[in-house]
Every structure is written in structure tokens, then in C-alpha cells.
């Protein structure tokens, strides 16, 4: 087994174990910090897939933005001492059975479907191509995305401000 395969197994292990901790941990702080491991592991998978720009975006937005936002929300909304009450889980056994059947079906499908293969798999820098695609082919979705972000920003401000009653 060469080095890159070993690193791949390590990245997969980190991703799956920390995702499991997000799903099963009793303490919401542990859940939030395990999400960091999942996001980093997924960024590692992107690097294995030759998607360098997406990996950088994943680190910047998920780890630098969304995770910090989630941690802030955890700190602002609950008393950290009584985690048993605030991170309650219900209906675990039926959910586990459902998820078990579901994952067996998914893996069966993945294994048995003859996926289309590209002629050659390339590992090349992607940033320039993605930038070109955003400014020519995907210009309208790109501009719409900025409108969605503006709307989300205004919506978040309106929702979270305190109303002062006269």
C-alpha cells in the first residue's frame, strides 16, 4: 500500500468517524467541533478528486464561516452545563433501522450500477477554468447567487434583531 492510499484511508476514517460523532454525541459542543473534522475530511476528499478550488472554498466557507456561525449559535442559545436537556435525541431505534436499510440499498446501488467512465482522468489546476465558466456559461446563475446572498443577509438581520416596543 503506497502513501497516497494510506492518506486516503485516513481522510475517509476522519470524515466518517467525526460525522458519526455529530450524529451520536450527547454534548452539542462535541457535535459542533466534530463537524470541523467532517468538513476537513471532505476537503481532503476534494483534493483527492483533483478539485483544488472547491477544496479551498470548502475550507474558507464551511470551516471559516458556517462552523463559526454554528458555534456562536450554540453559545448564544443554551446553557452549556445542562447538555442532557438541550441535546436530547428521540426515536433512535426506528431511525437506526430506517437508516440501516437505506444505507444497504445505497451501497448496493453504488456497487451494481455500471457508471459512465470518462476516457481519461486528469489532475490539473481548475481555478482558471472555473472562473471562465462563471463569467461565460454560468453568468446568470452567478448573478442570481449574489442576489440570493443579499436577500439572505437582509433576512438574517431582520430576523435576529430585537424589536423595541413603544
Amino acid at each position, binding site marked *: 500500500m503506497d502513501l497516497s492510499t494510506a492518506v486516503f484511508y485516513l481522510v*475517509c476514517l476522519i470524515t466518517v468517524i467525526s460525522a458519526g460523532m455529530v*450524529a451520536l454525541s450527547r454534548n*452539542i459542543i462535541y457535535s459542533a467541533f466534530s463537524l470541523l473534522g467532517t468538513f476537513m475530511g471532505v476537503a481532503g476528499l476534494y483534493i483527492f*478528486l483533483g478539485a483544488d478550488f472547491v477544496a479551498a472554498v470548502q475550507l474558507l466557507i464551511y470551516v471559516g464561516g458556517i462552523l463559526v456561525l*454554528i458555534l456562536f449559535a450554540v453559545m448564544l442559545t443554551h446553557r452549556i452545563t445542562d447538555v442532557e436537556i*438541550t*441535546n436530547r435525541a428521540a426515536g433512535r431505534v426506528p431511525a437506526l433501522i430506517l437508516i440501516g436499510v437505506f444505507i444497504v440499498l445505497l451501497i448496493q446501488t453504488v456497487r451494481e450500477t455500471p457508471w459512465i467512465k470518462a476516457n481519461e482522468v486528469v489532475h490539473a489546476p481548475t481555478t482558471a477554468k472555473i472562473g471562465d465558466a462563471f463569467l461565460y456559461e454560468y453568468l446568470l446563475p452567478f448573478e442570481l*447567487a449574489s442576489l440570493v*446572498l443579499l436577500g439572505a*443577509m437582509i433576512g438574517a438581520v431582520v430576523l435576529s434583531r430585537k424589536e423595541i416596543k413603544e
Partner: protein
Amino acid sequence: MTPDQLSSYLVIGAILFALGLFTVLTRRNAISVLMGVELILNSANVNYVAFSHFSSGNQAGQIYAIFVIMLAAAEAAVGLAIVLAIFQLFHTIDVEAAETLKG
């Protein structure tokens, strides 16, 4: 399960999706539910990028993944603002407590 097989990435995506769905189904804390949604979006992104690398040979899947990441950021901002508003109103973020609309 080797790094140059499509199916290994799809299996990782399937496991992430199942764990995210489990989180969404079982948690009663609204922030934990949002964490589960983030896991599900990440699994979809892994699939997009894997198919873009192994099947299509162009960058379309990566661009879709970037759009999904962007929408996840917007969703997290608005979702957590709603959670904070619910917390100010009910002093809890248990999703079963916020049932004022229930007749």
C-alpha cells in the same frame, strides 16, 4: 476502496448522507438539525465532485458544488437567525416546543 475508484467516493457520500439523515430525524435541538442538514449537503457535494472527476471530465460538477456551498452558507445564516428568534420567544430551541401554530 482505493482513491482511484468512483465507488469508494460514492460509498463515503452515502455514509455521510445516512448519518446526516439520522441527525435530522433524531435530534430535538434545532441547531443539531441544522448540523445534520450540513452533513447531507456535504454528501451531495462529494457525489457532484466525484462524478465531475471520474465521469464527465469537465468542471460542471465542481461549479454545482460551489453553488451548493453558497446556498448552504445562506441557509445557515437564515436558519440560525430563525433559531435565535425562536430562542428569544420561547427560551428553548427544542423543535417540539415551537408549536404555537398547532391547532
